[in-house]
């Protein structure tokens, strides 16, 4: 399993960055980190996966009878 960042650069300086196989806000962190040495990136468009959680964690109590 791998998380992907896809970058398209056109001849007219248009750069589109998209993330794939991410769930939750980690994608924003990774893009910001990647572009940190270039510029501040803050104009994100989020899709449904962004609002899903990264991992399902069980937080209940298991009791043995």
């Amino acid at each position: 399993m791998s998380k992907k960042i896809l970058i398209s650069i056109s001849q007219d300086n248009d750069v589109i960055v998209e993330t794939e196989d991410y769930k939750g806000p980690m994608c924003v962190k990774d893009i910001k980190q990647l572009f940190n040495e270039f510029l501040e990136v803050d104009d994100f468009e989020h899709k449904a996966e962004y609002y899903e959680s990264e991992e399902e964690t069980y937080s209940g109590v298991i009791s043995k009878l």
Partner: protein
Amino acid sequence: MSTTVKLGLGLLASKGILPKEEMIEVFQECLMELGCINQNNRLIHNGTIIGTLTIKDRIILSMNRANVNQHLQQIEKIRGLFAHRAEVAQKNYIYQREQQINQSKHNLDSYNKLVMELEVEKQVMQNALKRQKKEVCEALKEELIEAAINNGYEVEEISNKNSQVQLQLFRRVY
């Protein structure tokens, strides 16, 4: 897809082309020569804001994507003039460093260390100058690949569609 970012980017000065102070000085001279102004990191030409400058180890111009096309010619002028001026500034910088290093010849260890450091610096500068002379799209691609590798990604360049460069960065999760 989970998130998308759309940017209008121009790489005006490549990373490592000159030490930061010299890079900024040469860049400002180029802007003046071309009738541009850097006002609080806003690049202005003929009273029009072209975009916002981010000056770190390199100089990036970020623009409103809707207006990028009308500024392409100006961007190329800046990049081209900067490449020419930076080449001269590199020679001056290397000459000055060599003069300084020669003064430390009495201490052989220190001298050898400085000579080696300068050789590495020269190589970085030459590579950056080559990149500066490439098309902006190609230069930006190369710098993004370097940044991605430094951030732990594997990079694959995928087929060129409609003159577009496409990069796929992936980080394996185990």
